[in-house]
C-alpha cells in the first residue's frame, strides 16, 4: 500500500512549486511588470492559493478517489473521460518540457559542451528509479529529505545577497507599471504556482486526507513566500532592467554573491535546485503513469513507466532552442489554456457539480 504523510505532501508541494517557478517565470514577470514584479508574485500567490483551495475542496469530496476516478463519478462516464483527457495532455506535455528546461539550464550554467542526451537520460533514469522502486511514498520521503535542503539553499542565497541589495532598485512602486502590466506579470508565476492542482491525484495516498489538504495549502503559501522573497531579492540586487534580459535571473543573482572565499559558487546552488526539479518530475511521472493506468484500466500502473519515460525523452528532444522550450510552451499553452481551464475552470466546475450532487444524493 502506498501512503504519504501530511508532512510529505507539504514538502512535495513546496518542491514542485518552488524550483521551476524560480527558474522559469521570473523573466516573463520582470519583463511585464518591471520592478513591481513582486506585486505580481503576491497576486499570483493569491491565485495559486485559490487554485489550491479549489483543488483540495474538490479532492476531499471523494478522498478515496483520484481525479481520473472522481471526474467520472461527478460528471458521468463520457464527460469525465474527456476531462481526464485534458489533464493527460497537460501531464504528458509538462514532463518533456520541464525535462528540456532543466537540461537547457544545466547546459547553460554547468556543462556547456556536454550533449543534451546524457543529461536528460540521467534525469529520466532517476525519475524512473524513484517511481519504480520508491513509488509515491519513496518520492514523498525524498522530498522530505530534499525540501529542507532546497529551502536552506534559497535562504543561503538570500542571506548572502544581502550585501548587494540597493533599495533604489525596487522604487518607484507601481508608478512605472500600472495594473495592466502587473496583471500581465502575474500570469506566468501563477501558472507555475498553480501546480498544487496535482493534489487531486494524490488524495487517495494520504494517511489523513483532511490534514493533508491543509498542509498542501500551507505548502503553496510557503512556496509563494519564498518565490516572493527571491523575486524581491532579484529586483533589489540587480534591478529590473538587467534581470529582465536574463534567462535565469535567480541564478545570475547567485553569481554575484561574493563573501570571503565563497565566490562563484552558483554551480552548487544549481545542483541543489536540481533536486527540486527531480521531485517535480518524479511526481509528474507517478501521476502520469498512475493516471494513464487508471484511465486505460490497467491494473499494474508501473508498466506505464516504460511508456511514459520514452515518450518524455523523445518529446524533450523536440524543441530546437531555448526560446522554444521556455517561451512558446509557457506563453502559448500553459498560461492561456492550462491556467484558466485545467487549474481553475474544470476543477471549479467539478466542485460545483460535485457539491450539488452530494446535496441531492446524501447517500
Amino acid at each position, binding site marked *: 500500500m502506498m501512503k504519504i504523510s501530511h508532512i510529505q505532501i507539504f514538502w512535495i508541494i513546496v518542491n514542485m512549486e518552488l524550483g521551476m517557478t524560480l527558474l522559469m517565470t521570473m523573466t516573463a514577470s520582470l519583463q511585464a511588470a518591471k520592478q513591481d514584479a513582486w506585486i505580481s508574485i503576491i497576486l499570483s500567490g493569491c491565485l495559486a492559493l485559490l487554485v489550491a483551495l479549489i483543488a483540495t475542496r474538490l479532492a476531499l469530496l471523494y478522498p478515496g478517489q483520484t481525479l481520473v476516478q472522481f471526474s467520472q463519478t461527478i460528471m458521468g462516464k463520457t464527460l469525465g473521460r474527456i476531462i481526464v483527457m485534458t489533464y493527460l495532455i497537460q501531464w504528458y506535455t509538462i514532463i518533456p518540457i520541464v525535462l528540456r528546461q532543466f537540461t537547457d539550464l544545466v547546459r547553460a550554467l554547468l556543462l556547456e559542451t556536454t550533449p543534451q542526451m546524457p543529461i536528460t537520460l540521467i534525469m529520466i533514469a532517476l525519475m*524512473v528509479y524513484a517511481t519504480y522502486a520508491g513509488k509515491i511514498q519513496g518520492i514523498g520521503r525524498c522530498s522530505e529529505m530534499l525540501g529542507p535542503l532546497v529551502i536552506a539553499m534559497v535562504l543561503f542565497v538570500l542571506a548572502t545577497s544581502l550585501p548587494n541589495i540597493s533599495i533604489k532598485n525596487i522604487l518607484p512602486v507601481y508608478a512605472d507599471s500600472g495594473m495592466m502590466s502587473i496583471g500581465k506579470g502575474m500570469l506566468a508565476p501563477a501558472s507555475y504556482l498553480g501546480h498544487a492542482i496535482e493534489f487531486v491525484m494524490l488524495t487517495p495516498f494520504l494517511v489523513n486526507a483532511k490534514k493533508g489538504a491543509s498542509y498542501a495549502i500551507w505548502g503553496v503559501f510557503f512556496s509563494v513566500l519564498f518565490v516572493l522573497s527571491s523575486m524581491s531579492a532579484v529586483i533589489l540586487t540587480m534591478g529590473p532592467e538587467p534581470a529582465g534580459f536574463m534567462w535565469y535571473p535567480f541564478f545570475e543573482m547567485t553569481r554575484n554573491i561574493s563573501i570571503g572565499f565563497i565566490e562563484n559558487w552558483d554551480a552548487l546552488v544549481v545542483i541543489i535546485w536540481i533536486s527540486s526539479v527531480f521531485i517535480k518530475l518524479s511526481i509528474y511521472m507517478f501521476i502520469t503513469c498512475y493516471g494513464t493506468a487508471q484511465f486505460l484500466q490497467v491494473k499494474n500502473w508501473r508498466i506505464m513507466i516504460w511508456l511514459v519515460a520514452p515518450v518524455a525523452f523523445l518529446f524533450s528532444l523536440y524543441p530546437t532552442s531555448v526560446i522554444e522550450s521556455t517561451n512558446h510552451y509557457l506563453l502559448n499553452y500553459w498560461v492561456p489554456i492550462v491556467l484558466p481551464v485545467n487549474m481553475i475552470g474544470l476543477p471549479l466546475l467539478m466542485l460545483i457539480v460535485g457539491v450539488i450532487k452530494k446535496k441531492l444524493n446524501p447517500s
Partner: protein
Amino acid sequence: MTKRSFPLARAGILMLYFILLAGCWDSDEIEQLAIIMGSGFDLTEDGQIEGIVQIAIPAGVSGGKDNQPGPSPQQPFLTISDNGFSAPEIINRLQQQLSQKFFLGQRAVFVIGDAYARAGIEQALDWFMRSPDSRYSAYVLTAYNMKAKDILTTQYNLEPISSIALKKIMKGGSGYAETMDEFLYSVVNPDKPTLTGAVSLVDEGEAGKFFRIDRIAVYRNKKLIGFLNERQTTMFSLFQGKLKETNMTMQVESKNESLPGTTSIHIFGTDASIHTKIEGNKPHIELKFKAKSRIIENLNSLDLSKDENLRRIEQKFADKIEHALMELVQVAQEQYKVDLFAFAEEVHIQHPYYWKKSKDSWTDIFPTIPVNYQIELNIERIGRNQGNIYTHKNQNRGGNG
C-alpha cells in the same frame, strides 16, 4: 526479487552504455587551463581591437614542484595580445597561440584602454553579457591616458601577479571599485551613470612601478568622455559611500612664521542623500551631506577647547565640501553632461509621473537643474591634546620669561 531488480539492471546497463560511448565533454584538467588573471582591450592605429590577456603561470607563483620559499626563477605571469575586429575573434586567435585552454573563471580585473574606451565599448559589453565564462566579481578599470596593455604588462613588485594587486587595491577600499556586474547594470539602466575607476602608473624608481587608482572614468553613451580628477574623485566617492573615510586639510588661519595655519580632519560616518522637488515643471535638487569627523592635526593658534573655534572650523570645512560638490555638479552638468549623481534615478523614484513625461528630454533638462547644498559636518573628537603643542609651549615660555 529477481523480477524486481531486472528493469533496474537494464537501466544500469543503458547508463553504462552511454557513459562509455560519451567522454567527459566539459572536463578540463586544471593544469591544462590558461588561467587568465586580467584582460583588456585597446584600440590599434588602424581601428582594430587589440585584446590583451594576462595569464598566470602557476609554477612561477607558488614556486613550482620544489615548494621552495622565496622568489621563484620563473616569472609569475605573461601577457599576450592580438588584434582583431571582435572579441571572440581575438580570443580565437589568442587561443591558437596557446597550448592551454582559455579560462576566464578566475579573472580579477578587466582594463579598458583609454583610446578604446573613447571609441565605444559596446562590443566588449555584449560579449560579457552572453559568455557564461565571464564572472561578475571581476573589477572593471579604465586606463588613464594609456593603453590597457601598459597596465597589464606591468610587474608589480609586492604581488606576483599585477592583476591581483589591482584587485586587492580596490578590495581594500582605496580607489573607486566598480565590479563587472555593477558596470553592466549601470550600462543597461538608463537612470544611472556609467563610471569606472581609472588606473595610472606611478614610477617609484628602484622600487618599480606602482598602480594608483585615483580617478574616475566617466562614460556617456558607452563612450569614455573624460575623467574626474583626484579631488573630484575623493569627493564623489565620499558622497556615494564608496569611500568610507578620508582626510581633509585646509587653511584655517593665515600662515605665520611659526605655524602653517592649517587644520586636518578625518572624515568618517558619512551620510548623503539627494532630495528632489518639482517646481514649475522643473526638478529642483538638494544634495544633503552629513559627516562626522575628528581633528587629526591642528597647526594653528586656535584653542580647540573653545566651542566657537570648533564651530568655526566645522563651518570652514563644510564650506569646502560644499564647494567641492558644486564643482562636481558643475562638471556633471556643464563639462560632461553626464548625470553623475544619478539625479535621474532620484527624480524617477520620487516623482515617477513627472519622470514619465520628461524622461525623453532628460538630457536637455539635466544641465539646467538648479542644485542646493546642505552640508552638516560635526567634529566629534579633537584628539588627545586640547590645543596645539606649539602654542602651549610658547605660552609657557612667555610666562617664565
